[in-house]
């Protein structure tokens, strides 16, 4: 705050000279008492701060409290006592999970590998799809026809995970004595992609099909809808850019490479950062709904592993928390890393 001389000196009419202003001296003292200052600002603006209170309470109670519960991974858990009263177990849960050829650690490493692979395949196959579809949408000149295509391809996104997985389960269900196999299995058998026995046994009971089903259903569900943001970036490109490229003799591929790609690059980067950030954050709900003990080999991810050990029949919450702790810390490092790299490299960052 800029102070003028008048704040410090006031004219004393009795003696006829300027004297020190006692109020301003007090004000300066207060200025030094930082918290008092804060308090005054809050009191003056109390309505604004009151508006913030419910949001902070909700986040503290149901977002930050679980993080405190997560510390249970360092303690021996006794469900009856609160986290603070349980005794210190150090890294014993982590050791159990990470080292030793025990069943448990093998299962954990399997889950960790599956988590990474499901996300990684999603990045390789799932991520480019919306971009390709957006490019295709751009080729359709008729607005009506394009709208029809868009409305149809956005549709699957509006189903809940439960309904989507139910549908998938019905379409690839196993055959039995009284009823045939699912229509999709039948189609795949007709195409010669799977043998009759495999199709009849139910594709979701077969570990070698889980990843494909997971990815393909993901693309089916989201590719059309996710193309919205890329399509918006593509139609924002000025038509003159294409014309200029055409005059320079650029074919379709060259136009893609030198006109379209640079224009939508920042959108792609942002989407990629988000994607990498959630690399270890596989949608556990979908896995939980689709997997069964037959497919644990390829389907079990860290969240579902934790769910079985932490919420199942004989829960060991500390062990489950330790598994999730590792998963989430690596996940967070990935977000921050991806963000930093992209900010350094291209000046695009999400946070």
């Amino acid at each position, binding site marked *: 705050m800029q102070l003028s001389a008048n704040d410090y000196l006031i004219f004393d009419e009795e003696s006829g000279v300027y004297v020190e202003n006692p109020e301003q001296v007090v004000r300066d003292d207060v200025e030094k008492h930082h918290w008092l200052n804060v308090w005054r600002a809050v009191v003056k603006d109390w309505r*604004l701060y009151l*508006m*913030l209170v*419910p*949001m*902070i309470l*909700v*986040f503290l109670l*149901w*977002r*930050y*409290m*679980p*993080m405190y*519960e*997560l510390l*249970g991974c360092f303690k021996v858990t006794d469900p009856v006592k609160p986290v603070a009263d349980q005794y210190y177990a150090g890294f014993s849960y982590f050791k159990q999970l990470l080292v030793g050829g025990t069943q448990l650690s093998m299962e954990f490493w399997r889950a960790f590998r599956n988590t990474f692979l499901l996300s990684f395949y999603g990045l390789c196959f799932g991520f480019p799809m919306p971009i390709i*579809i957006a*490019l*295709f949408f751009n*080729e*359709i000149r008729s607005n009506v026809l394009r709208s029809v*295509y868009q*409305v*149809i*391809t956005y*549709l*699957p996104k*509006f189903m*809940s995970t439960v*309904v989507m997985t*139910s549908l998938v389960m*019905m*379409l690839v269900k196993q055959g*039995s004595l009284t009823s*045939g196999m699912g*229509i999709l299995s*039948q189609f795949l058998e007709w195409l010669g992609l799977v043998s009759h026995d495999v199709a009849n046994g139910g594709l979701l009971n077969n570990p070698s099909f889980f990843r494909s089903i997971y990815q393909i259903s993901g693309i089916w569900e989201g*590719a059309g*809808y996710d193309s*919205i943001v890329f399509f918006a970036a593509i139609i924002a490109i000025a038509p003159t850019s294409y014309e200029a490229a055409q005059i320079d003799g*650029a074919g*379709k591929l060259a136009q893609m490479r030198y006109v379209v790609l640079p224009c939508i690059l920042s959108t792609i980067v*942002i989407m990629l950062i988000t994607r990498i950030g959630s690399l270890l*954050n596989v949608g*556990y*709900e979908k896995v939980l*709904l689709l997997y069964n003990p037959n497919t644990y080999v390829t389907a079990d991810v860290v*969240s579902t592993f*934790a*769910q079985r050990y*932490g*919420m199942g029949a004989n829960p060991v*919450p500390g062990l489950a*928390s330790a598994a*999730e*702790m590792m998963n*989430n*810390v690596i996940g967070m490092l990935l977000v921050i890393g991806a963000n930093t790299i992209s900010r350094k490299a291209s000046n695009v960052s*999400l946070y």
Partner: protein
Amino acid sequence: MKRKLEISELIFKILSYTLLTIFAVACLYPFIYTISAAISGRHAVDYNELILLPKDIQFEAFLRMFNDNMFCNSYTNTLFLTFYGTIWALGISIFGAYALSKKRLLFRKGFNFFLVFTMWFSAGIVPQYLNYLATKRVFHAVGIMDDKWLVVIAMGMAAMNIILLRNSFEGVPSEIEEAAIVDGATEMQVLWRVYIPMSKSIIATVALFFGISRWNGYFWARQMISNQNEHPLQVFIRLKLEEFTDPEAMAGWNEAYASDSVIYALIVCSIVPILVIYPFIQKYFAKGVNAGGVK
């Protein structure tokens, strides 16, 4: 030169139309098949005799659903959760976002970090489960025995949605707010008369995001709501699916329609309301996606 250019464009055009058509068919076909299978006769469904159009039409599978008290119950529960859940989350988000959009707010950066951190790091499902159990005990002790309120109040907040709202509020020109304050408007009136009307479309989008996530909510509702009569639709669908795909439980099935038809009918029932409002909400969705990409 000119000719070569046309050929590469033509090929790409043909490719686009073909692949898009295949994709669109793949998106649409399961829905049509579901409807057909829900109203086809038993033999046709069990032995995959229908490909696209229904055969031996019956509506008993639907009637069975509509006569099921649990089904109607679960529908009401879902409407309850969606309605109150959206209002609760939206209200808190609007107030919070409004405060965060003000430059004069002290510790603004700290509060923002407080929000964004939850997007980077989440505790995971088991700690969350323990936390919700503790909340449930507190709620029961206070006298809120209805677990639906636990789901409404404790779940479904999203930092992303608050940030969307905050960005939109920050875009409101400060001159308008100053004019309102000169005219004697209080903080609430500024929010209500200036900010909310000026960010209508983003508020609609965020409300939609909350609404959809509430309508689709499954896992926590199943974990936390112990009373069967309070289960929402998604939990009901899943429990029915688990019951109906168990071959042993279905061995004695002797209705005139296939047991699968009941599941298909359920799926249809849960999609139809969304399809009905879909044309009206679609543009808000597109807006939200585009706004979410930029910060």
